[in-house]
């Protein structure tokens, strides 16, 4: 149903600001209300979407590479259903 594409660099230097891209292709228009990116257990980016946000939300955002750990991208719709995908970031 929903297809997720995320872009996270494989490696980053400690303290480096990295660019993250997230795309959720979702057939239900305007129902995605929230997006969060959790980095090593801590929420580093949160978004709230209203009906004026485009369908199939694509978002580019940034975070500081602090330590090696998983990055989880999670979308939630208005019914509480969620989709997520995780990528591993190695910090050198």
């Amino acid at each position, binding site marked *: 149903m929903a297809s997720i594409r995320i872009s996270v660099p494989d490696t980053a230097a400690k303290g480096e600001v990295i660019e993250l891209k997230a795309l959720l292709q979702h057939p239900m228009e305007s129902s995605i209300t929230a997006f969060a990116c959790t*980095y090593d257990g801590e929420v580093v980016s949160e978004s709230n979407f209203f009906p004026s946000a485009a369908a199939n939300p694509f978002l580019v*955002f940034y975070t500081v590479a602090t330590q090696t750990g998983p990055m989880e991208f999670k979308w939630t719709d208005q019914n509480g259903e969620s989709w997520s995908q995780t990528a591993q970031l190695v910090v050198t």
Partner: protein
Amino acid sequence: MTMMHRPAILTRRTLLATGACTVLISAVPARAEDAPDAVKEAQQAMFGDRPVQDGRVSLKLPPIAENGYSVPLTVDVESPMTAADHVQRIAIFSPRNPVTTVAAFTLGPRTGRARVEPRIRLAGTQAVIAVAEMSDGTLWSGSKETVVTLAACVVL
């Protein structure tokens, strides 16, 4: 037949051209103090009665958005993004959409860079407004006009 119709077509073209020019001339960038009522209400609902100042927020939008259903937007805020001084929230408002608030982003010192690039829907030509809330509680805003050729009718 054609001869008889030509003057009418020319008149209509002239009228349309005049109309288009008027729209372009009247497209003056909006400022925080003269933000439309719908945007003011939406800002108050989100940030309360705090004053909104112009500056520090810049928006990037295509000059002509061919598809109003998905318009790429970049919001940049001037901020060092340190623990002491960072952007807490960026909110995007549309004066012409049925739902004025488009999206809100929560940021912090771990964000590293005060920039978000979402895609938004626009129900017609308008000046999109972004407001940034700083860690000291001040509010800053910027806006950018875009001409929408295919308007999105935002379904609610």
